[in-house]
């Protein structure tokens, strides 16, 4: 007995290739479902995969209206099956050809039970199922490179919007006796600011350098009246650091964990530097 447990996986685990295939079913509605289900199955025996696909394809062929998988299988094998778990007997040749003999096939909706001409499938255990095997014959698959393929890709792939424009300015700020290069729109971790609560607006006054695209303002030591505006995002503890003291052969070891309290600050803007004398690349000419 080959047991195939088909569990639905969330979309993000299915690789992009299969996601595209799944979405193709919306473009080509007569796409056969079993192909996707076998790909999503978490436990399959790979050596039987191709034959499984072909048998499932065959079984699906029996029912021209595409139905959930468990129904046709249970009908043919006449064994009680609960919907989430699907069990197939090891498809032996005799069993496959047994379907040929049973020309009467029960159908709930009263479709014509036709004797189906089985295609000559060669039992190649290692053949990879192709997309062309599964798609109906009248549909043309657009080849990569053609404009039709690009059209489909545009519809399927998620659209990336360009990053929002950022003010081209940076400042060097001193916080908690440490200096940071600061850009509006980004956040930094600083030492814990004790009185600040979350979503408080903060003004950092110790601005040592401001640089724009056109000029630099170098503070001696501080750029006067410059201010960096920030918002406190979070007051958190840093990742744990294990302080481990050890002396060898003296049976001395001490273990201690340490989490430094820090604050995450988001920089909103840099102001107040315009009046400060800017520096230039030219060396200063000696005034007489």
């Amino acid at each position: 007995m080959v047991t195939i447990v088909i569990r639905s996986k969330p979309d993000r685990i299915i690789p992009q290739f299969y996601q595209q295939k799944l979405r193709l079913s919306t473009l080509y509605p007569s796409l056969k479902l079993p192909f996707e289900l076998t790909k999503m199955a978490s436990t399959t025996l790979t050596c039987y995969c191709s034959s499984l696909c072909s048998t499932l394809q065959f079984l699906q062929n029996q029912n021209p209206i595409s139905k959930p998988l468990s129904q046709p299988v249970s009908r043919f094998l006449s064994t009680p099956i609960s919907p989430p778990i699907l069990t197939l007997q090891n498809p032996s040749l005799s069993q496959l050809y047994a379907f040929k003999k049973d020309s009467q096939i029960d159908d709930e909706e009263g479709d014509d039970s036709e004797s189906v001409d089985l295609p000559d499938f060669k039992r190649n255990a290692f053949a990879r199922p192709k997309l062309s095997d599964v798609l109906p014959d009248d549909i043309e698959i657009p080849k990569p490179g053609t404009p039709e393929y690009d059209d489909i890709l545009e519809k399927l792939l998620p659209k990336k919007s360009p990053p929002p424009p950022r003010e081209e300015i940076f400042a060097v700020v001193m916080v908690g006796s440490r200096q940071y290069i600061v850009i509006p729109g980004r956040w930094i971790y600083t030492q814990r600011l004790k009185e600040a609560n979350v979503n408080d607006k903060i003004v950092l006054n110790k601005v040592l350098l401001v640089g724009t695209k056109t000029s630099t303002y170098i503070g001696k030591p501080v750029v006067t009246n410059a201010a960096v505006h920030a918002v406190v995002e979070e007051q958190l503890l840093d990742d744990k650091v294990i302080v481990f003291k050890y002396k060898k052969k003296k049976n001395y070891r001490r273990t201690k964990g340490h989490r430094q309290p820090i604050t995450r600050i988001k920089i909103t803007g840099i102001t107040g530097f315009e009046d400060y004398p800017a520096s230039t690349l030219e060396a200063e000419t000696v005034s007489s």
Partner: protein
Amino acid sequence: MTRVKRGYIARRRRKKFKIRALVSAHRDRDRQKRDFRRLWITRINAVIREKGVYYNYSKFIHDLYKRQLLLNRKILAQIAILNRNCIYMIYNEIIKTKIRKNTSK
């Protein structure tokens, strides 16, 4: 020979390596501060030496303090990499007092 449990030897080996790892981490956290400072100094030195035959890191730092600039080595090294012109502008600022002194003499 008496029976020794199978995991006994492995556990002792793992304990030894775990101890070594923790000790290294503790020691290297202090070393990290020294290492980075060395790196920054080397980088600043490399950039500043382009500015003249007899100009180097030591003179640069000396002039920096004379001019009362508070920028530290980390920031200077970062600026040297990201924004080379900025460092040259800082250099020009520092040099100004020297030129004045020379001319006044």
